[in-house]
């Protein structure tokens, strides 16, 4: 009989692993985490950017979510990573929005605070052209996308979250519910309301 049979599964696994096995396990986990984060990082950035309307803040939110997932939840089953990651990201987005609201209230008392230093900084990499369709089609797509983003940003947070996780990230109802920390029924309600609101607001762009 296995000497570790009476111990909890996680403890028995840890004790039965040698240092090399542990390192191999860590290496495998790291590769899996790397693949997972690479698969979600761009969509996560766009979700954060739509909510925050600020590129730097969106990058901060995504990086913070990555760090927290790796440090606190790397040992969790891989199918839980996506809901956990998006839950952490949404919490980060909410924190940034709260901090931004406080900062805006404080800065409104300072007369010279209207100047935005970041707007004057130019990065050569940002000026690089991206692969894109023709100018007219691109302009049309840009306009529609901009309208969609504005309407998404105007949605209540729960509706926006449900819509983006379901439609954009492609999570199923159960995973979206875990990410949002609510029931599957609530996800369906938030999603339905989001779609109705967006459709009525974007009708002219969608025709």
């Amino acid at each position, binding site marked *: 009989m296995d000497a570790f049979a009476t111990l909890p599964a996680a403890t028995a696994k840890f004790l039965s692993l040698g*240092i090399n096995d542990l390192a191999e396990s860590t290496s495998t986990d790291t590769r899996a985490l790397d693949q997972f*984060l690479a698969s979600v*990082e761009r969509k996560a950035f766009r979700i954060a950017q739509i909510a925050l309307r600020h590129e730097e803040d969106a990058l901060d939110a995504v*990086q913070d979510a*990555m760090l927290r997932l790796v440090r606190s939840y790397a040992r969790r089953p891989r199918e839980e990573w996506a809901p956990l990651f998006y839950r952490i990201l949404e919490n980060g987005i909410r924190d940034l929005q709260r901090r931004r609201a406080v900062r805006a209230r404080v800065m409104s008392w300072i007369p010279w605070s209207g100047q935005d230093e970041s707007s004057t900084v130019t990065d050569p990499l940002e000026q*690089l052209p*991206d692969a894109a369709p023709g100018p007219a089609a691109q302009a049309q797509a840009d306009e529609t996308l901009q309208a*969609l983003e504005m309407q998404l940003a105007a949605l209540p947070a729960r509706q926006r979250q449900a819509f983006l996780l379901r439609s954009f990230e492609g999570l199923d109802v159960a995973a979206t519910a875990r990410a949002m920390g609510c029931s599957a029924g609530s996800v369906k309600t938030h999603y339905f309301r989001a779609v*109705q609101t967006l459709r009525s607001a974007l009708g002219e762009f*969608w025709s």
Partner: protein
Amino acid sequence: MTDIDPENEEFARRARALLEGSVESLSARTRSRLTRARHTALEPRGSLLRMRDAAGSAAWRRWLPAGAVAGTVLAVLLLAGRWPAPEIQQAGMANGEDLELLADRDALALAQDQAAPEGELDYEFYDWAVNNDQDNGGGLGS
């Protein structure tokens, strides 16, 4: 209240296509920063593996400072222990001589005489000793 409505599905499909297009057209700078963020997040786990590789060859280095400290302490103790040793030995010998002197009555009396001040010498003893020597026809102490 369902998300299977065909019109809603069509709307969601188009919205997804737009948003995915925006992901594809992210700037090189943003993509690069996201990659760096990912590597930063995974860095502590990579360092664990590097520690495992380095552990075998560098184990002795961890003990080097402790060994140096232990050696220094030992050297100090040895040096400090060398100097008091002769004093202790001399003190021990002196104590032995004192005990021998105390045990010998004659030696004690002689020592007391030698220690007596000049004005307090026992002249009667010396007179007796001289007279006794002359009576016996021998010298003192023979």
